[in-house]
């Protein structure tokens, strides 16, 4: 088969040209590419500004989860030891990230917007045990001016579990 030497040069030209271009690859993990706004990464359990946990332990996320990845156990708040507004809080909250399919149903079902699939996609483990994220790993840090839970609060100050809703428009 005869070869056209011009063809060869054209191919090499592409190679040489790209040598001079700046690279498109990101130097992960030194450089991280931003994710889309609605990206569904690892879950976080949110807090109110005062530090109280938004999660009320209702286990609707666990009920909605198609992969049965979430396990919740609830207990009762007192004003001496308050974790969340209202009477109920999650005493155990575990997500098995090996089971999770990041569908976001838990987020949809949450009545208090406590669980949010955030932007962290760097989820790796070396054992199955590690794949179970417990409540202390999922909870976000206490905001500035907030207090750590459980907190002591004046009696009767946080009686509503589900936040105030607006009238239907």
């Amino acid at each position, binding site marked *: 088969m005869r070869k056209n030497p011009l063809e060869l040069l054209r191919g090499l030209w592409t190679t040489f040209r790209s040598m001079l271009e700046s690279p498109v690859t990101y130097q992960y993990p030194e450089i991280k590419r931003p994710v889309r706004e609605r990206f569904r990464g690892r879950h976080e359990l949110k807090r109110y500004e005062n530090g109280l946990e938004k999660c*009320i*332990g*209702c*286990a*609707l996320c*666990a*009920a909605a989860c198609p992969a049965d990845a979430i*396990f919740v*156990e*609830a*207990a*009762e708040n007192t004003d001496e030891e308050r974790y969340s507004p*209202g*009477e*109920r809080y999650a*005493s*155990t909250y*575990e997500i098995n990230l090996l089971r999770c399919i990041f569908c976001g149903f838990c987020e949809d079902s949450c*009545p*208090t917007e406590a669980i949010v699939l955030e932007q962290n996609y760097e989820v790796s483990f070396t054992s199955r045990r590690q794949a179970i994220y417990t409540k202390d790993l999922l909870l976000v840090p206490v905001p500035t001016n907030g207090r750590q839970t459980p907190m002591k609060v004046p009696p009767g100050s946080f*009686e*509503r*579990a*589900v936040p105030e*809703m*607006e*009238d*239907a428009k």
Partner: protein
Amino acid sequence: MTKSLVTLTIDGIEVSVPEGTLIVDAAKKVGIDIPVFCYHPKLHPVGMCRMCLVEIGRPARDRSTGEPIFDEDGQQVIHFGPNLETSCTTPVGEGWVIRVNSEKAREGRKQIVEYLLTSHPLDCPICDKGGECPLQNLTMEHGPGTSRFLFDEKIDLDKHVPLGELIFLDRERCIQCARCVRFQEEVVDDPVLGFTNRGRRLEIITSSDPGFDSYFSGNTTDICPVGALTTADFRFGARPWELNRAASICPHCPVGCNLTLNTRREARAEGRDVIKRVMPRQNEHVNEIWICDKGRFAHHFASSIERLTKPMVRVNGDLVQVGWDEALVRATEGLKDALGRSKGGLVGIAGGRASNEDLYVFRRFIEGLDGHTVLDDNLAGGDLTREMGVGRGTDLGQIGPGDVILVIASDLHEEAPIWWLRLKQAVERGAELIVANARATRLDRYAAHIIRYPYRRAVQTALGLLHAVTKRADLSPFVGDKSLQKVAKLFMKAENAIIFYGREGLDYKASEALAQACASLLTSTDHVGRANNGLIAVWPRVNTQGAWDMGLQPIPSGLGEILEQASAVYVMASDPVADDASLETLLREDTFLVVQELFMTPTAELADVVFPARSFIEREGTYTSGEHRVQRFYPAVLPLGGTKSDWRIVTSLANAMGIELNFPSAAAVMLAIAESVPNYSDLTYQALTIAESQWPHVGGESLYFGGNAFKNSQGLGVQVGPAAEPGEPSEVALTMPVEESEEDGLLLVPITRLYDRGTTVLPSKVLHPRLERLHIELNPKDASHLGVIDGAQVEFRMNGKRFQLPARLVATVPEGIALMPRSLGVSVVNPIPVQISSVE
């Protein structure tokens, strides 16, 4: 008695129901759901919630002649009123036409839901009822979806109101249906709940001290159509859809209430399955849809961390944990060695907590080694209840006009609350109740006749009654007064008669004499061998009747004598040392002792080999109730540690000892029982699982109607008939009572209280505030002679030991008597005279 039938049309379906039936029930019977909140088939209708509104059309009549009007086609004209009417308060009428799902009726219901939700907090995510809530379900089905009311106008009320230690009220969620108030008043006659205030500020309050003082309080949470009432035990425990369920039988008393155990795997329990709540399972022949609070809350013993999980053998004087093989070898060698010695043989002691399978296998094993079986119990008459017990088809719910019930020497409200409830209801239907006891009990208020006798004269009273019936000459010393004659007459003309006898104030021999007198009374008035007739013993344990049927029985003279002779003792599901500390020395000596138990009991502590047994939640088996109903319970959770079912432990040991006892399953043991126990001849596990449909409908689709009790799909059990045939007057040998000489001091009588401090109750912390405290009850007159005031410490000596405890002055205690509730710390087996003195 049969009522005439009324025919009407509901949503196009023609229904024929007995006269007086309410429209809501008639519709339910043909599968048309009329939503209700305040109506409950077991309560009187009140028409408070207005949810059941329907259009009712009545045949039009000519005003002047009263004749029905017909149209041109010859059809009767139906006249519909202008307003919707409550179907729960309106009895059916001939020819009526009911529209349940018409546009008008639907619109009415929609507005009622909208109205009920005006101030409902809608906190379903944290509500324990969420997921099994009639309000939630009916709102989804009938509600408007949106509300015209302003959210800001909802009022805030208390969300955490303890009505008592066991039941909590959420005032916001309450829709004011009064089911709880009416249940307490109408069904259990503990009117401790009430309404106060009006309108949206209306509130449920408790009027008792301690709050919500009723043995049936948990049932209000089942029939509450919203999450307003929750139990302390299950509060925030789990969501209903996460729970697994297993059918079970309550192990606390001889009623044998049907239960559903709701279980769940818990991180708190280190990944084990645990019982989250105990719910009633419908069995209209036994417990209807109710259970008592002991059955509901005293289940924690089965999951207690104190449970034995590994076999133990005695090494150098101490019990050490070993594997099953080693323990079996030790037990086999020990038994062989002990039985090889010249001294007496093997004694097997079993308790009424064990199932029929355990007890049958146990007897085969002990008898295979030429040993004696003993039932550890102090109420006699199991042979008589076997012969003359209630007939097949007996249902306390069917007892009514013309029927007579005698309760003697028992306080049913404390010993078997559901029997108490069933008898109360029988009286309301028209049955005549005779209560004979030495003191006033809660059953007295329903009694047509109250027979009051001095303690120690229960047998004489029963014989007096027998004399009044039979006029037997040999009974003439026991002739009673006129009231006894009246009661005897009642008995003779009764259509059906049942006698409940207990052990209050009796020792074993006296209870035997009492059982004989009662059985004789029934045979001589021809009240045996038929449905709703016969003898029932108020046994102290769930399966004592089964134990007698399996061929075990107590020793009248007590355990002391036979244990002295024994060289080896085998104890199953029983703790004789706790009842009688004097047995300790007998068992400690050179007797070889094998114990299979749930807990490290005083008896187990003396054992040479201890086997860990499974509790009723981890295994299957059957119990025979006091009414001779054999009922099956199923495993609910995985077994704890290295435990085994009692019957399996016995068969393993039997096979190691060279006795052929091979059963692959509990069902196979039941087949063997059916072969050898006459009354049980047609029993199989399959037969026990047959469940017919029952009225009223509960649970599942009918949550809104009958409440959250579980529908029974796992078996109603089988009532095994007594051996006696109707019309066959069998002679009952009577034991004449020995006149006991009056001694100085007070007679100390053990009585039963529902909330005692026994091994099966104490691990349930939720009940602790309600548990009885150790005390002695004295008559105020006796107390003033002794110089004792209410709450003061008294002391007495019994069996060489000194006891000091607080006294309570109770007017219903007869003079010369001191009452001691059982299982509170001081063990009194039989009535015993004591000298009580006050402690300075």
